[in-house]
């Protein structure tokens, strides 16, 4: 079965770009434009991994990750942050919040896909 990925980004361009990259790599992709929307999708769907931005309206990426990590079923869900904040401090915040990996935009397609694959236990 195809693995299901949720892409969370407020930019429509980035959303469709990442969706395209991941779909080409053989994954099923759904998108959300902010943290709240992402949580709604997560609660009704079944996802294997999240790719999320940090700066978003309504609920930002860090808050979303913290919310998820508090719940047992999302405790181990792989989350990749893809953001344009490249400060060391931001990266630390991201990891502390509970992200598995922190990637800085612009991420080249291969790096994104490979990080996704590395986190998916070799089952894809």
């Amino acid at each position, binding site marked *: 079965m195809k693995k299901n990925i949720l892409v969370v980004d407020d930019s429509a361009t980035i959303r469709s770009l990442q969706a395209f990259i991941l779909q080409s790599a053989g994954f099923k992709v759904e998108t959300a434009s902010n943290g709240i929307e992402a949580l709604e999708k997560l609660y009704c769907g079944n996802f294997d991994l999240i790719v999320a931005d940090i700066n978003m309206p309504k609920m930002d990426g860090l808050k979303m990750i913290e919310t998820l990590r508090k719940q047992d079923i999302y405790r181990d869900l792989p989350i990749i942050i893809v953001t344009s904040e490249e400060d060391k401090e931001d990266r630390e915040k991201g990891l502390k919040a509970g992200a*598995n990996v922190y990637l800085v935009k612009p991420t080249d397609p291969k790096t994104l896909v490979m990080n996704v694959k*590395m986190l998916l236990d070799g089952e894809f």
Partner: protein
Amino acid sequence: MNEFLTDPAIVGEFVTESREHLESAEQKLLQLEKTPDDPEILNDVFRSFHTIKGSSSFLGLTQLTELSHKLENVLDKLRKKAVKVTPEIIDLIFKGVDILKSFIEDVASGEEEKIEKITNSSVKEVQEFIEEINRSIEKPENTDIKEKAKDYRIKKTEVNEEEKQVFLSAAYQYLSTIRDALDGLKENPSNFDLVNAIFRAMHSLKSSSDYMGFSRIKEISRYQEEILSRVREEEKPVLPDTLNLFEEGYRLLFDLIKIVKEGKGNPPDIQEFLGKMKKLLEGKEKISEKSFPKNKELSGKKEVVEKTIRVPEAKLDLLMNLVSELVINRGAFFSISQRLDSGYDISRLSREMKEATQTMRRITAELQTTVTDLHMLPIKTLFSKFPRLVRDISREKGKKINLEISGEETQLDKMMIEKMSDPLIHLIRNAIDHGIESPGEREKKGKPVPGTIKLSASQEGETVIIQVEDDGRGMDPELIRQMAVKKGIIDRERAKLLDKKRCLDLIFLPGFSTARKVTDISGRGVGMDVVRDAVEKLKGEIEVDTELNRGTRFTIKLPLTMAIVNVLLIEVANQLFALPLSSIRETLKISSDKINKIINKEVTLLRGDLLGVVNLTDLLRLPNNKRKKEKIPVVVIQSGGKNLGLVVDELYKQEEIVIKPLEGVIADTPALAGAAILGDGKIIPILDPQQLIYMSEN
């Protein structure tokens, strides 16, 4: 040890499932030899190995995983026609199946040492087998990248530079997450958010290094992840010792990742560290404040996998229903007894009592059938292993043999099926080894070159009949007589008196074997006497029929089930005894003058045939209170094709009883098969007809 391996339910399920898959694989492989191109069969076998691979990896049974993975590869090659189906390849796959089987049984045994061997990273036996396979299928290893990523043991020979950079960048992030969380845990060992963070990072590192084929990194992170998952389960503060181990693990991981980054350097020795982790996982040391009971069980008593039996849901439902009815029925009895106390209308109570008793009788009868039924299995579970056996032995002996199996659906007590396995194996081995002639000899005799062995089962009344029949050279009673005398099993004089049938019976005596030399097949120290003993222990009988140059047939008769038998109650010397109905031919009343003495033996004429008669009181050496009667009750019993009339004092009714085995000093009393408790609490000894006949002859 893997946490799932300590769960008897999971391990039991795994063992049952794997046994089923291996059995099915064996059958399919035999078919495959006949129809080598059948893709369905190849797919089925492939799937069986695939399933075992999957579930064993889940349990951390590394060797099982590796072996089934290899076999799966071979099947894949056969499927893709990269390798041809030959008897040699099938032999090889069978060999693999055998190793898998022995591992599965090791797991089932629950013995820690054996299981640990299978969880090891390398076992000689498996390595050698894999090399043997590699040699025989010319292309050694599947070079598919995905395969490599999955199998951590296969090292990637060259690491793609681009991929390496992506890995390193992620790996350093995992490391920094671990570092921060470890520091945090030192200050607050109860912060589970931090434990979760390390778990996540460890898991990420494990799967990433797996992707890259970095086996050392993978192993270290795998073990730490497992320990972390225990810590999470326990929900107790992490012990300083455990933290120190994580610290050590962190340093090793850091060094290893540095070596990846720089592309040079000597990898540190991780074995010692892995050893410590294993020990911790096996529960010999505490992980967090309080170790949980699972650990204690593991280090203390071994948990042996329970014997399981698969039960159709419908039967279980039926049982449940019956039990609820029983509970309701109990209520009825209770109410009656209460009202009895308060002196109610007796006639009404007695009617109610009768009704309640009727209901009770129906329920217990149904319960009895259902539970007995649960204990029954189709004999197929036993027969299915013989095609493989026949194939292997006949290949080894250079004989061509068709095995014809019939009556596989016949049901037999599960315990008996297990106990019949060895005797049947021996009979079949004998048939191939001694019975069926070599192809040349058969041709000379004008027989079809392939020999035939028929294995059949059927049910007749309360008896299950199993036959093993071959169309080989048969046995010569005369030769058997001479051999027995020569071997000193019987003296010459007595041997002369034996008729053909009794000559044949000599083969069941200890120390008898007509094989001219001990072959490695039949001469494994098991003789026909062992076969007979096994059958008799099950209250069964074995008979042999043979005709020179036509073949030999062994007939085994077994009671359908061991526990409940129909018996006839009789009385001798003021004592009640029970005789199994299955061995009673008839009961008679004859007048005392019809019994005559011929050479020390009492006989009577029954429909023109001589019937040996013996007084049961004398036979059992009970005190004889001779009350001469005109009409003497006689029970004619039958066993092993022989009849005997037993003179008893009184014949009573038939009864259905539950046999209880005898224990202690009376267990060895020859004439007794067991004992039963009657409804009124009386204990009745059950007589063993076969023994009685034997005793009357000697």
